[in-house]
């Protein structure tokens, strides 16, 4: 059984993570160009490619949030929420501002994205506000 587990780890690390995932990420980059040529936003495919390339780091991050107790699942979810609200959302605010400027330049609605940027920066307070209303 240990030999099977060892083979699985080697398969995942060398084939899936080492070879397959970078190729899929490269295809996602190509897809972003095709999305753009069809009039869709390329951002989703670019972020997907980045997420694929970051799978090892993301897996390590998820493992670091697991406290090893019987509440490990909730701890991982709490860690993911904190990480998303405190690290990802401020960056998303920057992307929203860029999107607002691009929308303004092409005559599309932009105020909604400016409001989104402000909301991304205050998402933790929004959570606290909802809790205080309960």
């Amino acid at each position, binding site marked *: 059984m240990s030999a099977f587990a060892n083979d699985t780890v080697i398969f995942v690390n060398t084939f899936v993570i080492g070879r397959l995932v970078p190729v899929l990420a490269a295809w996602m980059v190509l897809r972003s160009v095709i999305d753009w040529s069809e009039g869709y936003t390329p951002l989703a495919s670019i972020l997907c490619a980045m997420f694929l390339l970051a799978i090892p780091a993301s897996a390590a991050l998820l493992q670091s949030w697991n406290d090893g107790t019987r509440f490990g699942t909730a701890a991982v979810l709490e860690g993911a929420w904190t990480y998303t609200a405190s690290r990802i959302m401020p960056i998303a605010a920057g992307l929203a501002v860029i999107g607002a*400027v691009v929308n*303004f330049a092409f005559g599309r609605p932009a105020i909604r994205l400016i409001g989104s940027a*402000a909301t991304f920066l205050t998402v933790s307070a929004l959570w606290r506000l909802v809790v205080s209303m309960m």
Partner: protein
Amino acid sequence: MNFLTGITNLTSWMGNVIMPTLAALFFALGVLRYAHGQAHTYAPWAGFLCLMVSGVLRGIEKFAAQAAWNNPDLVWITLRGMVNWTCNVFLPVYAVLQLLHGVMLYAGIGHRIYAGGAWMRHFSAAALCLVLSGLLRLAEWFIAQGLGGIS
């Protein structure tokens, strides 16, 4: 390689490299639309906004940092800050622009002078084509002057 580094660099690259480069394109688009007598005012504003991406984000961050991150009132305080800035900072500046626009219209600029004679629009468009680099540098200078705030 981790996801946070990736999107941080993506945002920084788009905001600090691509958008200022596109600003020149929007200024050029404004000149071209002006030369053809089409609506052109939005294009230079888009160019200015392309140069101000970081500033706009820093402004919103400033509005969103008026209270602790876990203060339930932060959403209201942020909204209040944006409304306050719009009404007390942006609108007075916009009023000056409107006064200037009104004076120019009263003097016939944009009505009796250039719109009434297409020849003048083409001459001024030619001049704008030749001074576009200078205009862009002037816009960049205005943006750079704004880094220290309005004194």
